[in-house]
């Protein structure tokens, strides 16, 4: 039986990136995956004939360009195409569009409010300042503030210095930004409800918080800090669907000699004398390696695949209480053609090419959250709707379209019990009805719908409660608190066991930074040459 240098559990994008960097350093790496396809939540799946579905993650911006470049992902087929703008359909028949071109964006904003159009400049400047700050830390390991190790102190000082560089006034702004709600933050700039609503979506996507909950301004940042070719905050489609990201990472891994085994779900991570030995597959087969890296979320890793007695009690309890909440669902829809949106002028570039939202007030946004708190899905949900096939011709047959609807809020369970099929249908209906309000021919164009509640996502991909970030992005679970205090440096409390999923710093999104950061720590422990790139940096 072959023994590997390292086994990575889960072929999600972080697991693949992690394995690729380890393999690049010369390690003999095996990546095991429970499903018969790789990619975890970054996949392109043919769930309807001739259609490719990005049926989980659907847009790409956070993927670190340093990793893209370092692993030469373009050679393995990855191509990210930016797409333009967004549109907010309004109940009064009007709409609010946002455009890639700053002047077009200004004009449209000024149509709703001249004040807000001008205020947007300051808003984006201020938000950009926070982006520049956070981007320093994405490809770094969070320091342990309680540690006196030189490495931690050095990192802590670097973190401190980056804050100090802001200067006194902006330092206070940073403190406020990191702690306030997205609604309050936007309220300090804008006066128009629909404009605030349009911008607030990024503050709640993937979280179990409402726009009025403190801490959501940071979540907004989490969606802004990415870029496509230096255009910060802009988003792109991966050509061929999100699976292209995973395929490219897998290609890189294999080019460095790494192996991938699908249909090899891990039943147990084997530990002896506080030292990891390898993994036992669901088939009963055991594979051995001195290093095991888990791409699974921390709950699944430690509560499902390990023995409680192999873990310190305090750690086990912390993991048990780790907040990873199902708050969003998805509808993936095959369309017979491009739906019409009568509110938009004919030929508008927003049709098909923009993120579409069908909610126009802050109150509706917050009320959507109240439903979730009551243990049910939002009856009037926030939908982030894209039609990638309008930009990417490889997704569907010509003239046909694929629509991805990210829906919030959607709980993992209904009032504490499993979803019934009637409820699933009702959830589907509330989404389709909301879109139909703005697109009369939409319903007739539907060929196939895949509905995914958080429970479905958990069952298929394995993410606890289908949480897209592998854990809430609240202050108590960020930076050195992620996933849990004292274990934020990718090392599990068992020798040789590491975490590389989005439960770790810097968190979720198709970023690949957790995977890369974990690889750097592993290589550091093994005293191997680091293969993980540094942040590109900005004067």
């Amino acid at each position, binding site marked *: 039986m072959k023994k590997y240098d390292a086994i990575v559990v889960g072929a999600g994008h972080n697991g693949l990136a992690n394995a690729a960097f380890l393999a690049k350093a010369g390690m003999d790496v095996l990546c095991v995956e429970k499903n018969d396809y790789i990619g975890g939540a970054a996949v392109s799946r043919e769930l309807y004939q001739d259609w490719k579905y990005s049926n989980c993650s659907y847009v790409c911006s956070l993927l670190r360009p340093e990793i893209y470049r370092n692993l030469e992902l373009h050679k393995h087929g990855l191509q990210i195409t930016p797409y333009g703008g967004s549109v907010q359909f309004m109940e009064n028949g009007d709409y609010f569009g946002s455009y890639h071109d700053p002047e077009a964006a200004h004009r449209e904003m000024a149509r709703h409010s001249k004040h807000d159009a001008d205020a947007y400049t300051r808003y984006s400047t201020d938000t950009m300042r926070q982006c520049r700050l956070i981007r320093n830390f994405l490809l770094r390991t969070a320091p342990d503030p*309680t540690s006196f190790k030189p490495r931690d102190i050095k990192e802590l000082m670097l973190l401190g210095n980056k804050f100090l560089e802001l200067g*006194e006034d902006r330092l206070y702004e940073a403190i*406020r930004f990191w702690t306030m709600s997205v609604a309050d933050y936007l309220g300090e700039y804008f006066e128009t409800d629909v404009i605030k609503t349009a911008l607030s979506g990024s503050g709640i996507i993937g979280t179990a*918080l409402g726009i009025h909950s403190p801490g959501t301004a940071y979540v907004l940042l989490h969606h802004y800090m990415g870029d496509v070719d230096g255009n910060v905050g802009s988003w792109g489609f991966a050509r061929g669907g999100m699976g292209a990201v995973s395929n490219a990472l897998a290609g890189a891994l294999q080019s460095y000699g790494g192996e991938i085994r699908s249909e090899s779900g891990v039943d147990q991570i084997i530990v002896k004398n506080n030292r990891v030995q390898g993994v036992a597959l669901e088939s009963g087969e055991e594979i051995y390696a001195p290093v095991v890296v888990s791409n699974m979320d921390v709950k699944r890793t430690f509560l499902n695949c390990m023995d409680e007695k192999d873990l310190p009690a305090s750690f086990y309890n912390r993991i048990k209480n780790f907040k990873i909440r199902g708050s969003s669902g998805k509808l993936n829809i095959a369309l017979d053609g491009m739906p019409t949106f009568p509110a938009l002028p004919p030929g508008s570039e927003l049709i098909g090419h923009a993120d579409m939202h069908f909610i126009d007030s802050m109150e509706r946004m917050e009320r959507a959250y109240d439903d979730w708190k009551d243990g049910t899905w939002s009856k009037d949900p926030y939908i982030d709707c894209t039609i990638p096939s309008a930009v990417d011709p490889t997704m569907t047959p010509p003239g046909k379209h694929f629509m991805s609807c990210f829906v919030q809020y959607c709980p993992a369970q209904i009032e504490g019990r499993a979803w019934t099929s009637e409820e699933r249908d009702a959830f589907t209906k509330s989404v389709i009805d909301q879109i139909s309000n703005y697109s009369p021919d939409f319903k007739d164009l539907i060929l196939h719908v895949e509905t995914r509640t958080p429970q479905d996502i958990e069952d298929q991909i394995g993410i606890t409660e289908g949480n897209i970030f592998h854990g809430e992005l609240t202050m108590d679970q960020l930076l050195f608190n992620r996933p849990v205090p004292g274990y934020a440096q990718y090392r599990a409390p068992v020798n040789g066991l590491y975490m590389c999923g989005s439960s770790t710093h810097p968190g979720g999104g198709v970023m690949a930074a957790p995977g890369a950061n974990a690889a750097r720590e592993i290589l550091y422990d093994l005293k191997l040459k680091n293969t993980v790139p540094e942040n590109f940096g900005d004067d």
Partner: protein
Amino acid sequence: MIDKYDAIVIGAGHNGLVCSALLAKAGKNVLVLEANDQVGGAAITREFADGYSVSACAHLLYKMQPQVEKDLNLNINLASDNLSTIVLSEVGEHVTYCGNKVTGVNESDQKNFAEFFKRMTRFSDLLNTYLNKPPPRLGTKNKKDLFTLAMLGFDLRRMGKVEMREFLRLIGMNIYDELDERFESPLLKGGLSLDSVLGTHLGPRSPNTILTYLFRMAGKHGTLSTPKGGMGSVTKAMSDSAKAAGVEIITNAKVKKVIIEKGTATGVELNDGTIYNSEIVVSNADPKKTMLELVGARNVETRFTHRIDNIRMKGNAAKLHIALNKLPTIKGFSESDYSQRILIAPDENYVERAFNSAKYGESSPLPVLEITFPSIKDSSLAPSGCHVMSAVVQYAPYQQKSDWNEEARTNFKNDIFSVLKQHMPDIENCCLSSEILTPLDLEKEFHITGGHWHHGELTLDQFMFVRPVAGSAQYQMPIDGLYLCGAGSHPGGGISGASGRNAAQVILKREKR
């Protein structure tokens, strides 16, 4: 009357009184100007019906800083001390907690509560150290600021790795998840949820509610007492102490504006045109009122004005006062239970739902209540054999969609009574008369913008380094000689005297310079 004072304090609220007394004790010639006809600001005793009195706003003492009591030689006469909190159960199976003890819950909750209490008091002690000094500036090279920051780091680390980590984890977190992790009893979780959100625009699920809970615990670990004669007696004692130190207090003296020449405060002008001169003007009024009305935007910078304007300070707490011909019946209550602090907060989700309404400018149809019957231990508050009920009711948002017209007030009162009736079926028969004070009323009566008890939400984005606003957390406003000493400045609300005391320290230090 003196021609020129060393310092003028605007407003005789408890912080203004503390500040003036400390300045006077240091030899300053201090004048306090109060708009109302009695001192105390919102901390007064109010006769709301013939012979029936209550503390008009806050009705429990739990944050009074011992240092303030000592500095002012305050001798506060307590009617009751070390009150328990009873969370009402409809079926009479109430949960009672006091200190680290809780009854009416299972053993595991009892054990966990003691642990929870221990940790929270420890963290609140750390917090309290910093509540009692002016916050340092950040990002400067000033040695004193750097030292205070280094001390903060050291104090954190001194708690030990485990506790420091826990502190850093909890400080931004919500109380809901923490309670959910620890406890089973819905009543206990409901009560503690209410403790965390009292006086705020937050629900238990809102991140930041651990901070508000710690803030409540800071100083006296949440030990509750009621002063004899209502809250007015506390501020009366303070004003006596101030007067003894030589402070001159003028009531019915509404300040129209702070006089400013070339960026320096030189005195104040009253509504009646009287002018008082002083090189130091200290405002106990809230930051919005002080900067936007008394000082005026023209005298300060644009972004500063914007920040002041953006302070979130719209109150959510209403006050209900009832004159009673007898105590209402509460199932399972013993006689002594009536003199405790009584909460209606059946579970944490109930509290959160009550908050939902506030987000949309509506009052809670099922409000949460903090109830006391202060007349039981203090016969001066009601005619013999009769009683008063004083209740804090949430949520009653300042910006109510109907602007608190008569109908809205009546509806809200009815809603409160139907909640009360579930626990006190005979309340209506006991009720002789009642009044409700919404945040709008509190604003009118006590000149607090938004009727917010704390002069501004106590959230991390308005806390410590950035309270009241970024760049002005050290009591000194961007006008030479002008200071804030009210709850709008660090550390914030509650009858603690900390803001007034910290401000006095800063002012006296400037004098030495």
